[in-house]
């Protein structure tokens, strides 16, 4: 790629699986040369659905497609001696090795940080693990759900009268993959300055903990163990919804006041809109949303009384109507969207958010989400679709490493590639 990209010229060996695959993809989006290393026969992540037209097949996993763009793919069994040798040859050419194996796995193969340093002294090895590469839980068996549970984010979510609930699209590995990328970039910056590589330890549990918006700080500051409240929130004595019913679904609104943060301004504009429809009682129009509003002193009765006209108004409008008007009027509100709502959002279309990518072997062109940010220069895009199993074995093993076709045939039959 001769195009100007953020990380063009760097090479990443991607040994992640599950949601952590997004890490390798982000490097690829940024222009790095990402080589995804899969076990012979293909990555187990190819068995994760949903699938293209519901055909459960390792070359038709939408999970694989969506988190392995911008990577070339090779197969390699690093547990075999031949595989280790080949891996080390690749490490010599790489800047970053990104992995999400159980702690100790690569060390056991002689391919941990110490082993890789012998091959390339300035290598950056980034280990994404559920709890850390060391410590009392580092050996724990883990999954997206249990890592989520360990991070408080599970406990504080869900309806109070039922068990806590997680985010139904498993996101522990995904978020962990993102941390793997930025932590690697810290190390890459350091290497650019000092010439030194290092081992990056990127555990998911403390990173996911941040996603609670510091709920545990309520314990530190106030000895208050914030409970789950479902679609409600609480301001000291009064509980109030933040997900409201509307005519055809739900919307998320912040209604209230106090000085600063724009909530009072927003609520004032909300009342003005309601008034245009004749749905703002006089007492509501007279409210001072700044100095006259103190959520910390409100009783439940006060809160319910204040919110009632808003709830009535919201029930007269659809998600789409509310989405349009509140955006225009800068009222803190947004629809509770599902995948269809998001695809139909004309704002995303106006920003050319959606990308397409050809899949010749499916004889189809698929729609993908756009990049995670827009750069004014060196923009990110889908340079290539996710690789087929072993798709770049020839390109990398033969053309780059100089292995012969005969050698590849032996390695294939030996289960190395």
């Amino acid at each position, binding site marked *: 790629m001769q195009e100007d990209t953020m990380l063009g010229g760097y090479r990443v060996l991607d040994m992640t699986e599950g949601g952590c695959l997004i890490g390798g993809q982000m490097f690829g989006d940024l222009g790095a040369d990402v080589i995804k290393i899969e076990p012979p026969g293909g990555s187990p992540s190819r068995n994760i659905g*949903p699938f293209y037209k519901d055909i459960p097949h390792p070359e038709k996993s939408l999970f694989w497609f969506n988190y392995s763009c911008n990577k070339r793919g090779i197969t390699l069994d690093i547990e075999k001696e031949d595989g280790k040798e080949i891996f080390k040859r690749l490490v010599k050419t790489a800047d970053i090795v990104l992995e999400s194996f159980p702690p100790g796995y690569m060390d056991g193969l002689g391919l941990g940080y110490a082993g890789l340093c012998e091959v390339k002294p300035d290598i950056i090895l980034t280990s994404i693990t559920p709890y850390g590469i060391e410590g009392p839980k580092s050996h724990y068996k883990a999954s997206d759900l249990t890592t989520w549970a360990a991070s408080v984010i599970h406990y504080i979510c869900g309806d109070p009268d039922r068990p806590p609930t997680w985010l139904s699209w498993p996101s522990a590995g995904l978020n962990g993959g993102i941390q793997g990328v930025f932590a690697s970039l810290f190390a890459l910056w350091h290497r650019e300055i000092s010439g030194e590589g290092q081992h990056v330890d990127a555990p998911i549990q403390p990173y996911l903990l941040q996603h609670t918006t510091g709920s545990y700080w309520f314990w530190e500051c106030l000895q208050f163990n914030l409970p789950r409240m479902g679609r409600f929130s609480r301001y000291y004595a009064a509980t109030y919804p933040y997900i409201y019913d509307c005519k055809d679904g739900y919307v998320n609104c912040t209604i209230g006041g106090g000085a600063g943060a724009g909530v009072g301004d927003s609520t004032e504009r909300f009342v003005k809109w309601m008034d245009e429809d004749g749905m703002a009682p006089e007492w509501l129009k007279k409210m001072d949303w700044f100095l006259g509003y103190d959520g910390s002193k409100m009783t439940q009765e006060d809160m319910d009384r204040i919110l009632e006209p808003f709830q009535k108004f919201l029930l007269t409008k659809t998600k789409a109507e509310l989405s349009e008007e509140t955006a225009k009027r800068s009222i803190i509100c947004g629809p509770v969207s599902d995948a269809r709502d998001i695809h139909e959002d004309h704002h995303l279309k106006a920003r050319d958010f959606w990308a397409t990518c050809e899949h010749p072997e499916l004889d189809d062109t698929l729609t993908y989400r756009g990049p995670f940010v827009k750069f004014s220069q060196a923009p990110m895009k889908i340079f290539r679709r996710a690789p087929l199993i072993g798709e770049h074995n020839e390109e990398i093993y033969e053309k780059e490493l100089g292995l012969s076709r005969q050698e590849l045939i032996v390695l294939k039959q030996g289960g190395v590639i």
Partner: protein
Amino acid sequence: MASSMLAGVKILDMATAGTGPLGLRWMGDYGATVIKVETHLRLDMVRMGGPFYKLVTHPDHSGWEMVFNSSKYSITLNLNKPQARDLVRRLVSEWQPHVMAESFRPGVMKRWGLDYESIEKIKPDIIYYSTCLEGQYGPHSQRLGFGTVTNSISGASHLAGWPDRPPAGMPLAYADFPSAGTGLVAVLSALIRQRRTGKGVHIDQSQYESNLYVLGCPLMDYAVNGRIMTRNGNRLPYAAPHGAYPCMGDDRWVAIAVFTGEEWESFCHVIGSPEWTGDPRFSTLQARKSNEDELDRLVGEWTMNHTAEEVEAMMQAEGVAAHVLENNMDIYEDPQMKHYGHFREITHPAVGTVRSEIPPFRFSKSTDSHFRAPLLGEHNHYVLSQFLGMSDDEISDLYADGVITTEADLLSRGKKED
């Protein structure tokens, strides 16, 4: 001693709330110099949202401030005054920050002459990081919101809760964090490119889009298969048992996830192989999925007789993924978190001793130099004299002219918006 990792990297942080500030804070934790431009006239949600130490409602007593703005220097300006905006431009031209960040509604910085185009004229290689709800342009770019709104528009709220009820949603500002992480990736990548090529960039982050990027797959499921993925409690299509089960005690739960036949065998062994585990209704994955309500009920009947900690230990001993659903108190006692020293006791002038947090990621050679969150406007004198070489008289004039805001301004803040 400052961490050497990002020593010399300079960041002008004009962003508020969670997304932009968090990543920049971690850069500060690892040695970058981060100047945060705040104001007494219009408090950042992070300063006024709490939780407030011992209920003292003051911007220096905010727990969230410690999460998002540790390891930074605070100056306080009245950006409505042209002199304040000139000061920002002077910081850019004289201090030469690598990165400038902002999270205002699109148009505000332009009105102030502090947008990317204006700043690029002063410093052509600036990395200008704009982050807001729906991006710098587009029909909804003026939508106002916090992470709670992003949760909903990005599809996360819809995907949280039970299939037979309205969504429970994700709590607080969950969506701020996928944005924070992806935004940090963008800033660091741009920094590396800036050093190599001398080029800058304008980063337009729509927090909505960042979250869509991470969620990704449900969107593809609709585009390709016409299916609208929805919430399903704690279930996963290809594992059972998979859920949060009730344990002994008040509001105690354990998460258990069984994927393979081998793990199922181990699970049965852990719970003492009761008769029901031999029932063909539970012997295969398919069977367990078909009878999942009954399965969850039976598992819950067992877990109810144990503490969550016991279940976790018993399951882990036999290689089954399980973990207590840690609450806000548990996390401080978690042995793994303690091993990493995640909560570090520091002294803060306003609140005394507090358990602050070091970055969640670490390095074999580089150490952090995390320091306490600043008081509001704590570093006005320090920054203006050390970084801009201003004299005491010049600085006094700025106070007199109301260019620098003070505690007295806290009382007069109100509705005047940007």
